[in-house]
């Protein structure tokens, strides 16, 4: 059986979503009988998290080295590559998060192999395995064959379904990579959490944008409320910025920012092509506009042809209710 090693990235008591998706995918691969799956994590691990992970994987290995308490590309790469080499792993996969994309290339070089980054799809049973990944900012995708071994992959979050496996109770093992101290040449001085809770538009996963249909600057409160309820960043169209309802920094479009969030909600936006060109790479688009013929509906997954002054507060309330229910 080919061994799949999933690097599980944790943040406090939570695993990263991308890691969980890959654990679920690996569990599915293990069911086929062709693969066996293991999870690797570094640093502290609460009992609760340990329990959660063990219900998704047949084996969880935690490295206890104190040097792995904080992220360092050299330390992480050495520990993960060392384990993969020692146990003869066929595949090393990690989420294409900032950290995953930062240190997996090092793992590949240590193992004398190549890698594919940021994949959105995989054919694990092909020989050689093939992966699909975006290029040119998503303008095209490439199917990449991986004849070398082991296979090193980072996978884009939301690319694999998080179908929790049933009836797994994995074994747990602790290990030490050892001799990491001399291998790590970077020192984390401190971490500064991003100011406030809003992310820059170009980096945001969730965006709520408003246009001229809001009718007045003060009505942007409706947009801000919805954004706050879901932890999204506020965007605007050019005409709104021109009318000085919003700051230039909020402008989405050809003359503003190009955004590609997981979710873009546009309210009171007709869909001028200059705006569309700034948001068309968004994954899911919900458009709210009173005019059912508004161009923006041509670029949306979901549409509500209704009055934003009613729809927006209702959505905000619904999201808050869901949050309270947990």
């Amino acid at each position: 059986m080919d061994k799949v090693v999933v690097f599980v990235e944790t943040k406090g008591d939570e695993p990263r979503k991308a890691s969980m998706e890959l654990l679920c995918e690996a569990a599915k691969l293990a069911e086929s009988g062709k693969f066996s799956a293991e999870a690797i994590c570094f640093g502290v691990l609460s009992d609760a998290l340990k329990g959660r992970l063990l219900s998704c994987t047949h084996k969880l290995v935690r490295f206890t080295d104190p040097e792995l308490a904080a992220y360092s590309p050299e330390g992480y790469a050495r520990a993960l590559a060392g384990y993969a080499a020692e146990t003869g792993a066929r595949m090393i996969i990690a989420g294409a998060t900032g950290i995953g994309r930062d240190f997996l290339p090092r793992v590949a070089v240590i193992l004398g192999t190549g890698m594919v980054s940021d994949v959105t799809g995989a054919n694990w049973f092909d020989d050689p395995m093939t992966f699909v990944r975006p290029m040119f900012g998503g303008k095209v995708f490439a199917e990449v064959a991986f004849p070398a071994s082991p296979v090193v992959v980072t996978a884009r979050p939301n690319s694999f379904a998080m179908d929790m496996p049933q009836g797994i109770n994995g074994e747990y093992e602790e290990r030490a990579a050892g001799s990491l101290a001399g291998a790590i040449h970077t020192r984390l001085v401190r971490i500064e959490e991003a100011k406030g809770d809003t992310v820059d538009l170009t980096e945001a996963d969730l965006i709520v944008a408003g246009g001229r249909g809001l009718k007045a600057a003060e009505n942007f409160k409706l947009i801000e409320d919805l954004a706050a309820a879901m932890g999204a960043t506020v965007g605007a169209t050019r005409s709104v910025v021109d009318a000085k309802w919003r700051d230039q920094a909020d402008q989405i479009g050809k003359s503003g920012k190009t955004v590609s969030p997981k979710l873009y909600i546009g309210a009171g936006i007709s869909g001028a092509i200059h705006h569309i060109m700034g948001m068309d790479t968004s994954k899911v688009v919900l458009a709210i506009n009173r005019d059912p013929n508004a161009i923006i509906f041509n670029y949306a997954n979901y549409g509500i042809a209704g009055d934003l002054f009613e729809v927006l507060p209702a959505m905000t309330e619904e999201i808050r209710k869901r949050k309270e229910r947990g």
Partner: protein
Amino acid sequence: MTMKVEEKIAVNAMKNDTKSHIVLDQTICAGCRERMCIAVCPGHLYSLNEETGEMVVEYAGCLECGTCMIACIYGSIAWDYPGGEYGVQYRYG
């Protein structure tokens, strides 16, 4: 069947500055009845914002012909070429 003019412009290679190279004098525009800029612009980039009563120009789609500046006999349009590296880049011409 016919493409909208903004869809036509979207076919072009355009590199946009965050600053507009077209500046309107709204006090002049406020006294203008003809609004010739709206009719002459091949990109259909001029419009009147009904809520604010101000003229708006969507400079990001500008084809840099200069027709608006020439047509505005009231002198409301301060028009310069976009800076080097910006604006429309014709692939055919």
